[in-house]
């Protein structure tokens, strides 16, 4: 099934349920090159308010590059990206107060302590919430005085998520928020992500764990080798592929189809 017909059915489903959501991020013909390597190859998609858009695909598929361009920390080679109607690079100072970003590598100084970092991020966003509230949300109240370097992998991820929430964001970019997180942490993070979207935030979340994606996604962007294999609501993807199929099965199918059509083109 082609991506186009997926999109068509998306519109119909939206109209039937009466919940059409406003577009928060629009990406058109995005290309990102690193010297010789093409990391993102001419992709287009939208992400909407009130939805969790999950970006899946293997390591090196272009997920992080795409998210970094959208969050303004990387420059696109070509293409047009708009976040809340603004250019993520040029209008950075306008966008930054409205987005929450969780990068893959945390981005916290190792000796900084939990409460202190949370407080600092609250200050950066003009105290829309309190450090205490944030830490309670991610269940780190007891680790308040612990330094970042002494936190476990899961605790680091939860703190990092909390910092993104300090923005009370209208758009959130979460790069692999559940990697290295235990089962309870995953439930907690998933709950937070769901609530964010239910409150109207456009959540874009990258993961290479398809089980995770399946539990939280409204909309799925499947990446492979810098290309978009699929761009469709989760319901549509699974509906079209048969209800017993997991995202993993679907990914394998689409991936091998793509390989076949590539080899045909080559002939």
């Amino acid at each position, binding site marked *: 099934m082609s991506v186009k017909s997926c999109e068509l059915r998306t519109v119909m489903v939206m109209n039937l349920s009466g919940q059409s959501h406003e577009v928060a991020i629009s990406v058109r013909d995005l290309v990102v090159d690193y010297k010789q390597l093409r990391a993102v190859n001419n992709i287009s998609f939208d992400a909407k308010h009130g939805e969790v858009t999950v970006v899946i695909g293997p390591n090196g598929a272009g997920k992080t590059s795409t998210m970094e361009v959208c969050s303004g*920390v990387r420059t696109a080679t070509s293409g047009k990206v708009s976040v809340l109607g603004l250019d993520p690079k040029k209008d950075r100072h306008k966008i930054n107060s409205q987005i929450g970003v969780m*990068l893959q590598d945390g981005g916290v100084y190792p*000796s900084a302590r939990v409460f202190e970092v949370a407080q600092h991020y609250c200050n*950066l966003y003009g105290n829309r919430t309190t450090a205490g509230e944030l830490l309670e949300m991610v269940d780190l109240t007891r680790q308040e005085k612990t330094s970042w370097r002494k936190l476990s992998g899961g605790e680091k991820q939860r703190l990092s998520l909390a*910092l993104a929430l300090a923005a009370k964001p209208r758009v959130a970019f979460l790069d692999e928020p559940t990697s290295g997180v235990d089962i309870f942490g995953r439930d907690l993070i998933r709950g937070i992500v769901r609530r964010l979207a239910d409150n109207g935030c456009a959540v874009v979340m990258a993961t290479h764990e398809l089980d995770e994606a399946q539990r939280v996604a409204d909309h799925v962007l499947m990446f492979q080798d810098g290309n978009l294999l699929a761009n469709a609501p989760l319901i549509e993807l699974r509906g079209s592929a048969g209800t017993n199929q997991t995202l993993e099965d679907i990914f394998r199918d689409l991936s091998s189809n793509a390989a076949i059509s590539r080899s045909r083109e080559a002939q």
Partner: protein
Amino acid sequence: MKIFRSQLRQELTVMARNGEQLLLLVVVPVILLIFFSQTDFLTTESENKIDFLMPGILGLAVMSTAMVSLGIATGFERSYGVLKRLGTTPLGTRRLVLAKVAAICVIEIAQLVLLIFVGQLLGWNPNQINLAQVLVLLLVGTSCFAGIGLILAGRLRAEINLAAQNGLYLALLLLGGIFVSNDELPKTLGDVAQVLPSSLLSSLLRSSFNNNELVIADAIALGGWALSACALAVISFKWSD
């Protein structure tokens, strides 16, 4: 303003927790000052050893804070992704740089007060200080060394940057006319040393404290170092690896 204050507080706490940095910033200059003023290893011709020593040590303090401390911390922040993440917040480059500059100034003031206090205990009693000139020189020296530190921090990997900053610190210290006057170095080495920013700063400070004339050529050279180092830092700095 609140954002700036919050960032400044963060900068200072992180620096204060770096024990090895504090050692370099506070303890080493004081020990050097005490050691060389109480022993006979200095070959200066001035009657009072401490008069020769003190200006150079103050310059050294500026170099250790503005170059080494700022440079190492910034290099690690870059590699930990701290700068990248802050780049997604409303902080902004301008406030980040201002907070860093303010943090350096706070630490330098503390260092200078401590060193001057210890110096007085050791009998330092400069005649007719040109205070305005001293302050301007310290400021120009600070921008110069901060620029150099950030050139390295903005490009090198954190661990290499750490080694490079310390290596450069040692070289600039030995060739800085702080303990060994440049005239006593082998001819070629001495000629090179003379135009290095550490030598320029220490000799300019020495004249300002001891009421000699300001060597205009040296002042211009130091200013040139400061301008070009800062400009190069701005052009070459990369916010993430």
